[in-house]
């Protein structure tokens, strides 16, 4: 009882008329990693934000360290010892690592006004050492020059530099490679041993089992289970999250023998990220692309799709051969690409759902006049097919939860009836139930003859879906493994091996 650090009781939060949380409780003890799980829209992120003072609850009380608190903003929470690392990074790109970490520290300013660079540089190095940080990041480097993974770690460092006793992590590993996840988890374990508590919001079951001490599961804004990790199994957790059994997540392969080639790439080059790549995808085939963060997977498919201009090489799509200079050209030849960063590159958040769904087809084939009736019918049909939870099709797409947003992006491409579907991290940040639906969908599309190029950092996903796995390292395709020979070990061996170097985050 006495080691309870934070106790939230009867928390209710409404957005408009909809309750995101309905009278839920949460208890975090000192020195534990407490996982908060649930599907998209279950309320776990809302709870995390309330704990850290990002949002205020409509009802309920929070007792922190024995004292009732009502944080008006994150600054108050930070002062009390609760820091949050959000999914959206909140670093200032043009400032250095050290400047970002100590931006709001009083000690960083001499006389309260003048930035004391030598001091913050020294204190950043001390922080690295104290935490046993093993990513060699120079405190003077600009944050904009870091990889997304490194930026995320800087955010966590900033939280720790503020003497946080409870660190709230919202989907911290969504953008990290397996190696980086390992580094991050090692750090969390070390800090836990010194008494720092973590509230970890995540979708990933394997993370929870490797890291968390206790697990709280929400479903539709209400608590649906509370578990001790040691005494819990995966199916139990899934049932608590989804409300039913999903069966084997990865038993979804119904393939037909692949047909003629849809995409052939020969000698494609773009800077140091894509070096002399040659491969092909055939009708009805799922080709996976694996590799560490920074290996050039996204750069490769963007060059194939014409999103970035390649320097050399050839892309054969349908009958057309040559380099593509715009996505529009690729789309005309039957290609489609679901980008890695949904909000920045996929979704038009201000536009209604129906208009999002119609956009690519309109650009490729539409005439001068819009046809709103047909648009709405088509959108309604795809929304039903993909089971998108969108009560009103004319509502802004930004109002949907992450998983449903991703489905809207997919619907946009399915409306063009593509022959080649390129998917870049299609299930990032998406809950397990929706993930399962997407796997089924990818499988059905392949069975119907769509050629699919799947980039993913989640090896189980690639192993389950891909007929062939291409492994990328430092911009080059270094291995091609047929389904039967692909395994996590085999992929990682190719992905991480670098001559004369220990495997590190190649960013």
């Amino acid at each position, binding site marked *: 009882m006495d080691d309870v650090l934070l106790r939230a009781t009867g928390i209710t939060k409404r957005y*408009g008329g909809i309750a995101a949380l309905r009278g839920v409780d949460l208890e975090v003890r000192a020195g534990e990693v407490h996982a908060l799980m649930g*599907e*998209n*829209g*279950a309320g776990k992120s809302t709870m995390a934000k309330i704990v850290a003072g990002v949002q205020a609850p409509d009802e309920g009380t929070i007792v922190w360290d024995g004292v009732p608190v009502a944080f008006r903003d994150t600054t108050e929470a930070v002062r009390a010892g609760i820091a949050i690392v959000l999914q959206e990074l909140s670093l200032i790109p043009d400032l250095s690592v050290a400047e970002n970490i100590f931006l709001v520290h009083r000690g960083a300013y001499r006389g309260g006004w003048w930035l004391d660079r030598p001091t913050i540089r020294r204190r950043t190095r001390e922080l690295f050492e104290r935490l046993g940080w093993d990513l060699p990041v120079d405190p003077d480097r600009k944050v904009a020059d870091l990889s997304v993974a490194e930026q995320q770690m800087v955010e966590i460092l900033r939280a720790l530099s503020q003497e946080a006793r409870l660190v709230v992590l919202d989907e911290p590993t969504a953008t990290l490679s397996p190696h980086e996840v390992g580094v991050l988890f090692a750090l969390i374990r070390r800090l836990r041993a010194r008494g720092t508590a973590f509230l970890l919001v995540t979708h990933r079951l394997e993370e929870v089992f490797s890291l968390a001490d206790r697990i709280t599961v929400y*479903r*539709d804004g209400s608590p649906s289970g509370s578990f001790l990790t040691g005494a819990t199994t995966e199916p139990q957790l899934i049932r608590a999250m*989804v*409300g*039913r059994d999903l069966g084997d997540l990865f038993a979804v392969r119904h393939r037909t023998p692949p047909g003629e080639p849809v995409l052939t790439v020969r000698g494609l080059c773009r800077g140091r990220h894509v070096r002399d790549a040659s491969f092909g995808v055939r009708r009805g085939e799922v080709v996976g692309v694996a590799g560490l963060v920074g290996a050039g997977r996204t750069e490769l498919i963007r060059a194939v*799709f014409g*999103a970035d201009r390649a320097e050399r090489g050839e892309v054969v799509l349908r009958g057309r051969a040559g380099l593509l200079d*715009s*996505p*529009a050209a690729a*789309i*005309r030849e039957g290609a489609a*690409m679901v*980008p890695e960063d949904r909000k*920045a*590159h*996929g*979704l*038009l*958040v*201000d*536009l209604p759902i129906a*208009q999002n769904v119609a*956009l*690519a087809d*309109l*650009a*490729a084939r*539409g*005439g*001068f*006049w*819009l046809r709103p009736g047909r648009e709405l019918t088509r959108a309604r049909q795809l929304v*039903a097919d993909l*089971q998108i*939870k969108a*009560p*009103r099709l*004319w*509502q802004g797409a930004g109002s949907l*939860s992450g*998983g449903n947003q991703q489905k809207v992006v997919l619907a*946009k491409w399915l409306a063009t009836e593509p022959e080649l579907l390129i998917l870049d991290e299609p299930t990032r940040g998406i*809950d397990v*139930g*929706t993930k*399962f*639906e997407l796997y089924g969908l990818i499988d059905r599309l392949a069975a119907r003859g769509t050629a699919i190029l799947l980039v993913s950092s989640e090896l189980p996903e690639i192993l389950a879906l891909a007929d062939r796995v291409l492994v990328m390292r430092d911009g080059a395709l270094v291995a091609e493994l047929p389904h039967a020979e692909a395994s996590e070990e085999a992929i990682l061996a190719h992905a991480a091996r670098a001559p004369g170097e220990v495997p590190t985050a190649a960013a």
Partner: protein
Amino acid sequence: MAGAPQARGVTGPHVVRARRTGEGRRRFAEEYRVEGAMLAALVLLCAALSVAAPNFLSAGNLRNVSWQVTAIGLIAIGQTLVILTGGIDLSVGGIAAFAAMVGGLTMTRGSGEQVALGIAVTLLVGLAVGLVNGLLVAYGRLAAFIVTLGMLSITNSLTYVISDAKSIVGLPDAYRVWGRGGAFDGLPWYTLTFVVCFAVGHILLTRTKPGRFLYAIGSNEEAARLSGVDVRAYKVLPYAATGLLCAVAALILSGRLGAIDPDTGTGFELDTIAAVVIGGTSLFGGKGSLVGTLIGVFLIGVLNNGLNLLRVNAFWQGTAVGAVIILSVLVERLSRRRG
């Protein structure tokens, strides 16, 4: 939440129809929420003025108001398109004066009255300068703010260079028809022009592919490009349209005044941006409508007219308009928070 039973049971034609009309009404209410609030403000203002200033509702005064909103209204149509894509056009006043001056000099320099040539040159110059703006923004990937600020300075300066800072007076009657002639009894050509341009713009935005793409570009340019939208080509369109509309507004203004003044258009950029913002269009792009801009134009016009009628010192007009700009944004913010 995934897989939970949802609105799968919506079948049967009667259910669908009931949903559709209810949905349509709610959709309309939501889409035009901001515009509705500003329209209410406009109606209130008109009601108050009709009580406070008895001659407000007289035919003469209403014609006066419709004249006062025409030039700004025309250019605000283009400005709305530009702002919807996330851009801004600060050069509108400069383009208006420059286009009118080049056209006027062409017309008066030659022998005889080449009115058609003068009007054609004015329109072409407006369109051309707008095109340059658009090409620099879209293909040169320069910030619209910088490009059009530079263009404002260039056009202002060139206008003085070619005119030697003198007005062109004694314009031919044929040239002045657009500014003071009438199509039918009491319906001036300039009002008709405004109505037609507004209708074309509104239809373009709400019913056509280019209009949809302007919203898409303003909402998320990169996502639009990756969806196959030819972003660069569509980004040129609003600047070119704005340039052309500036020329039209300048022709109407100089026709009415009977002179082409190098200072025509001073402050147009702020007036048009004010109208667009009051009408609820987001300066970040992607959200807004021409209906809102129309209301914004009239709100400013009626406000200025009302202050005139009430014999308030004209220097106060800027304060009133500024207060309305800030209030409109504040109201929008508050209503959003509650909704």
